[in-house]
């Protein structure tokens, strides 16, 4: 759980690293290290420039061939829009003007190809870095990617995209291109120095069912090819050079974790009904269309949060109504007969910016519904896309980062305009489409009863709510330890929001991290939460807990917890409860204790 600790147990050089649990599962295997950096370019004078020109041409051909493969794989797997990034890279490796300059210099200066390639590319990259525009500074990375590919092929260090056996990949960071290529090979697991649970490669790992631990900071420094490694994607633990005893322990753990998983999956389609008959809804948070095939096997009662921002990241610009509609339609058809909650673009904060724009305090700045209300045409396009998708299955709309009743009213007005513009063209949509608000700002929490009167549901976003309530920037490492979603103030605010929604006669959902934390399930159930929305892999666990819980006792339990004045006390009670009542779930997902536990 603590991403920064590493310890040497002293047992034959066994190294234990803790990172972010990005994709559940346990893998035991051999390391395949994928190095990206460390290409050292020497400047040499050559006798025969034509040999250098040959080497360069071979490298260009090889790079084009690789990119063409990546492009086609991406085209099939992730669609034409995302594939376009690789198409541009293909154009770059075959840029005739640019490479003519390089070839000219090789001949004139009699320098080795590597040096001239590195030098010419670096000039271009510098040129872009000096531009004051963030978008263009980012483009410098794409050019650098192409440079590294050509240099790597010059050094004939081919990308190990084909390999023997079934290794565990260790790398500094998986790029989307790597993830696509690796997904076509037999890989037991992924380990990376950087990245979070929501980075593209992590999502891809989850949808491919490959265990992954990311954000380990320096895993690549501790390994070399062929080393033994164990990864525990449930708890975010990696053991390098494990002792025989450790391998055996993890082998046993793998067996019983997989047994528990298959048991949970086999009953995942059962409803989340408490022993005394309270039915709650367990839904999935969805980021990419690749995750949709997991909805059914994980027993999702619909999509409680469909994030629309990834569309912008993929397209590199705000996609038009038609592109959005096509994407939304796929999600709606897959979720049928259940509903999909589409959250309007939540841009800003730690998320992406579409415009060149920087702020002193982005978390307190122009983001979420604030930005969209200033760009009503974008919002209207998105509304129309969702409305059009609503004829294919049940859709709901949700506004992020709302801080006042007025914002809700204004967004609702724009929604009416969108409806009218469709009606004027005789385009069909669900006239009774439900609208909800994410409650993640303290002012909205305090006003939740008034907000609730304007909408059909509320959904609690615990990450931002915690951050704003406790005044902690969770991306600031100096205070990250103060970020605590079990702080009594957070728990009491959640209760306030649920009660406000209920007194206005509407349902209250939660789509933040906490909704997917098995530690919090019984407490949230007891506080009256109606809908839990979380990453789909955890849904069978939540359902299991709810089905074996009595709602009346959960209410009593929640009342006790709400009286406590420290998060330490709350967490201690919750841990004790989960350990006693749901021992196997506790040992799979939560416990940092000894692995000697056996079923």
């Amino acid at each position, binding site marked *: 759980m603590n991403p920064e600790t590493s310890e040497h147990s002293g047992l034959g050089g066994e190294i234990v690293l803790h990172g972010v649990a990005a994709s559940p599962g346990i893998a035991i295997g051999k390391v395949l290290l994928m190095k990206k950096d460390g290409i050292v370019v020497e400047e040499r004078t050559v006798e025969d420039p034509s040999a250098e020109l040959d080497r360069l041409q071979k490298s260009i051909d090889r790079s084009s061939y690789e990119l063409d493969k990546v492009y086609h794989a991406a085209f099939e797997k992730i669609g034409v829009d995302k594939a*376009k*990034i690789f*198409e*541009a890279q293909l*154009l*770059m490796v075959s*840029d*005739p*003007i*640019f490479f003519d300059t390089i070839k000219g210099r090789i001949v004139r200066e009699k320098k080795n190809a590597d040096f001239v390639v590195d030098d010419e590319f670096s000039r*271009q990259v510098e*040129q*872009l870095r000096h*531009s004051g*525009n963030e*978008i*263009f500074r980012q*483009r410098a990375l*794409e*050019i650098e990617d192409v440079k590294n590919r050509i240099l790597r092929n010059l050094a004939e260090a081919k990308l190990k995209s084909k390999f023997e056996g079934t290794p565990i990949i260790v790398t500094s960071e998986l790029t989307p291109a790597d993830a696509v290529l690796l997904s076509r090979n037999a890989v037991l697991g992924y380990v990376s120095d950087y990245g979070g649970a929501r980075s593209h490669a992590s999502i891809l790992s989850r949808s491919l069912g490959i265990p992954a631990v990311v954000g380990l900071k320096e895993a690549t420094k501790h390994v070399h090819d062929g080393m033994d490694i164990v990864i525990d994607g449930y708890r975010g633990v990696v053991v390098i050079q494990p002792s025989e005893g450790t391998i055996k322990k993890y082998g046993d753990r793998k067996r019983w974790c997989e047994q528990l998983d298959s048991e949970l999956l086999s009953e995942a389609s059962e409803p989340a009904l408490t022993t005394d008959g309270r039915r709650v809804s367990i839904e999935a948070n969805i980021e990419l269309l690749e995750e949709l095939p997991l909805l059914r096997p994980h027993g999702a009662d619909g999509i409680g949060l469909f994030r629309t921002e990834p569309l912008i990241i993929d397209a*590199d*610009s*705000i996609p*038009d109504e038609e592109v959005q509609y096509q994407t939304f339609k796929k999600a709606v058809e897959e979720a049928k007969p259940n509903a999909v909650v589409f959250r309007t673009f939540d841009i800003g904060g730690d998320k992406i910016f*579409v*415009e*060149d724009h920087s702020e002193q305090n982005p978390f307190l700045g122009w983001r979420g519904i604030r930005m969209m209300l200033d760009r009503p045409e974008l919002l209207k396009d998105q509304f129309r896309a969702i409305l059009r998708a609503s004829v294919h299955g049940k859709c709901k709309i949700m506004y992020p980062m709302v801080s006042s009743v007025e914002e809700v009213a204004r967004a609702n007005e724009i929604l009416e305009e969108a409806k009218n513009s469709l009606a004027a063209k005789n385009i069909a949509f669900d006239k009774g489409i439900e609208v909800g608000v994410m409650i993640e700002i303290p002012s909205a929490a305090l006003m939740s009863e008034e907000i609730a009167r304007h909408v059909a549901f509320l959904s609690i976003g615990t990450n931002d709510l915690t951050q704003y309530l406790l005044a902690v920037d969770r991306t600031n490492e100096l205070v990250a330890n103060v970020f605590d979603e079990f702080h009594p103030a957070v728990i009491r605010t959640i209760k306030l929001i649920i009660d406000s929604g209920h007194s206005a006669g509407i349902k209250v959902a939660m789509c933040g991290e906490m909704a997917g934390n098995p530690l919090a399930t019984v407490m949230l159930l007891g506080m009256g939460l109606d809908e839990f929305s979380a990453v789909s892999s955890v849904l069978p666990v939540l359902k299991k807990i709810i089905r074996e819980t009595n709602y009346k006792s959960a209410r009593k339990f929640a009342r006790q917890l709400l009286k406590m004045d420290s998060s330490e006390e709350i967490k201690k009670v919750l841990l004790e409860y989960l350990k006693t009542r749901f021992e196997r779930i506790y040992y799979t997902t939560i416990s940092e204790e000894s692995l000697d536990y056996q079923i």
Partner: protein
Amino acid sequence: MVQQEVVVKNRLGLHTRPAASLVKLAAKYKSELFLERDGYRVNGKSIIGVMTLAAEQGARILLMVEGEDEQAALAALVDFFDRGFDEP
């Protein structure tokens, strides 16, 4: 040689994808194409060159075309800029 000043209209500017489309468009013509911004000049048939212009929304670019089909090429390029590279 023919030349004309154009303005980048789309929100994200002349980023990777429009740069790719521009280069592909320029390749259809035999004429040479240069783009100049604030005295910095690049070859319009080089995607890497075009990207280094870092031309954001509102940037003014001078298009210079020279060759047998220069009129047709300039017209097509001006139109491509006017359409905001078919982006919002």
